[in-house]
C-alpha cells in the first residue's frame, strides 16, 4: 500500500536535488497545490514563492481564505487580482476546450511575468495522475485539457516540477493528513474554476449567478453530511445552463435560467457514480437557489449521470 510518510521523505530529498535556485508555485488553495507547496517549501524554504491568481472565477470568499491559508502556512507569497484580464480574455468564448486553453495560457503568462521579475527558473504545479491521463498525448485521446497540462504552451521558459504526478487524489489526501494540512478533506475544484460551470459564455454576470448557486449547494450538502443524511460526495456543485424556461413568480410570468445540481461519489475521479442526495435536501437547495437568485433562475434540475458516460464537470 501507499506509504505517505515514505513518500514525503523521498520527495523532499528529490526536490532538494532537483531545484537549484528559486521556484514558483501556482497556488490555488486546493489539496494538490497546497500539498505540493508544503513539500517544496520543506525542501527549499523561502526560495519558494507561492503565487495565487484571483481569476474572477473563484468560489464565494475563496480569494480571502486562500490568502489566509498561505499566511498560516508561512509561505513567501504573492496575491494577484487578474479577474478583469480573465473576464476580457473569455469574452465571446463558448467552446469548453477554448475556455480551458485560454485560462491555462493566461495563468502561464502571469507566472512567467512574475518569474522574470523575480528571477525564478522553476514552476511547481500540483498535477496529479488523472490530470495528465485525461489531457491526452500521442497515445491517449483528449477527454479534457486540464489547465495545468493541456493549457501549457509548447515552448515554456520555466522548468516544470510536478511532485504529485504519479499520485491519485486519495493518496494526496493521505499526504496532506500526515503533513497536518487543514485542506486535506477539501473537495476538488477545477483549475479553470467557475468558468467551466457556466455553459456558454462565462460573463461576469453569469459568474455571479453560478457562484451563489455553488455556495448554496456546498453549504446544504455539507449540512446534510454532518447530519448523517448522506455520504460525503467526492465533488458537489452547481452548473449554470443558460437555457431559459417559463416560470411563475407572484402571479407574473417569469423567464429565467436553469441550474443543475451535480454531486458524485468516487475515490479517484476515474469512475464516478452520481450521489444519492435525499429529496428533502434537493428541495431545500432548489428553494434556496430560486429564492436567492430571484428572476435570474427559475428551474433546478438534478444530474443523475455516472462517469462514464459523462465526466464530473460539465465542460
Amino acid at each position, binding site marked *: *500500500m*501507499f506509504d505517505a510518510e515514505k513518500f514525503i521523505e523521498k520527495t523532499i530529498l528529490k526536490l532538494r536535488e532537483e531545484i537549484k535556485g528559486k521556484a514558483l508555485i501556482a497556488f490555488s488553495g486546493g489539496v494538490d497545490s497546497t500539498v505540493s507547496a508544503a513539500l517544496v517549501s520543506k525542501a527549499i524554504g523561502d526560495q519558494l514563492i507561492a503565487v495565487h491568481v484571483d481569476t474572477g472565477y473563484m468560489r464565494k470568499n475563496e480569494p480571502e481564505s486562500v490568502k489566509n491559508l498561505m499566511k498560516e502556512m508561512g509561505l513567501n507569497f504573492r496575491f494577484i487580482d487578474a479577474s478583469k484580464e480573465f473576464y476580457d480574455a473569455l469574452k465571446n468564448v463558448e467552446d469548453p476546450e477554448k475556455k480551458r486553453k485560454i485560462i491555462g495560457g493566461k495563468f502561464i503568462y502571469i507566472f512567467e511575468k512574475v518569474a522574470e521579475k523575480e528571477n525564478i527558473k522553476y514552476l511547481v504545479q500540483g498535477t496529479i*495522475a*488523472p490530470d495528465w*491521463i*485525461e489531457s491526452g498525448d500521442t*497515445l*491517449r*485521446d483528449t*477527454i479534457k485539457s486540464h489547465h495545468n497540462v493541456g493549457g501549457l504552451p509548447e515552448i515554456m521558459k520555466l522548468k516544470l516540477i510536478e511532485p504529485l504526478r504519479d499520485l*491519485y487524489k486519495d493518496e494526496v489526501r493521505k499526504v496532506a493528513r500526515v503533513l497536518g494540512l487543514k485542506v486535506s478533506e477539501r473537495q476538488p475544484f477545477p483549475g479553470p474554476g467557475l468558468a467551466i460551470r457556466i455553459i456558454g459564455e462565462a460573463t461576469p454576470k453569469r459568474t455571479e449567478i453560478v457562484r451563489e448557486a455553488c455556495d448554496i449547494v456546498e453549504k446544504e450538502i455539507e449540512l446534510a453530511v454532518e447530519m448523517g443524511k448522506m455520504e460525503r460526495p467526492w465533488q458537489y456543485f452547481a452548473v449554470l445552463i443558460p437555457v431559459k424556461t417559463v416560470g411563475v413568480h407572484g402571479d407574473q410570468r417569469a423567464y429565467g435560467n436553469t441550474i443543475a445540481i451535480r454531486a458524485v461519489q*468516487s*475515490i*479517484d475521479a*476515474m*469512475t*464516478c*457514480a452520481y450521489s444519492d442526495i435525499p429529496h428533502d435536501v434537493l428541495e431545500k437547495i432548489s428553494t434556496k437557489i430560486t429564492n436567492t437568485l430571484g428572476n435570474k433562475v427559475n428551474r433546478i434540475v438534478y444530474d443523475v449521470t*455516472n*462517469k*462514464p*458516460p459523462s465526466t464530473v464537470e460539465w465542460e
Partner: protein
Amino acid sequence: MVQIYVIDNGGQWTHREWRTLRDLDVETKIVPNTTPFQDIKKDEIDGLVLSGGAPRVGMQSDLGKCAEYLEKAEVPILGICAGHQFMGRFFGGKVEPAKIPEFGKVELMLLKEGELLFNGVSKKSIVWESHNDEISILPGEFIHLAESDTCKIQAMKHKDKPFYGLQFHPEVEHTEYGEQIFQNFIKICKRDE
C-alpha cells in the same frame, strides 16, 4: 515478489491497472506497447496486462507490439477492453462495432463455475464498461466465460495457454469484484512461475 507489467495501449485507465497491481504488492511498471518483447522478457516478468486503448484501436489498429507478446509470451496475459478485443482478433475471432455500446454500470453473468480468474466472484455482479466495439465471434481456441445483457463476450480464456480477455474494466473502483479478479490473476501468475 510477483512482477507483472502493464502494456499501455493508451487507455484512460492504464494507470489504474498499474495502481491496482501496486496496491496488491505486485512489482509493476507501465510499459509502452512499442517495447520489443525481448526487453520485457529479460526482466523475468511473471505476467502481462494488455490495457484498454483509445477509441477503436481494439478493432482496427495493430496495438503496437501486442501481437508479438501474444505470439512469444509464455507467462499469463490479461487483456482488458481493447487488449481483450485484440487478443480475440489475433487468435482468429472477429471484432465489430457493438450493437449497443456499453458505458458505465452493467450486470455481468458468469457462465462457468470453478474458473480460477473468477474465484470468489458472484454469479451475477456489477462491472463498469466503456467500449464501442466488441468481440462478435469467439476465436476457436477460446472458452466463453461471461456475458451481459448487452454484450455477449464479456470474458474468455484460451483453452491451453494462460491467456484471459475481459471486455469490462476490473481496474476501476466501481467494478464490484475488480480487486478480487486482479488477485486471482496474480495467483495465476504465481502458479505459473
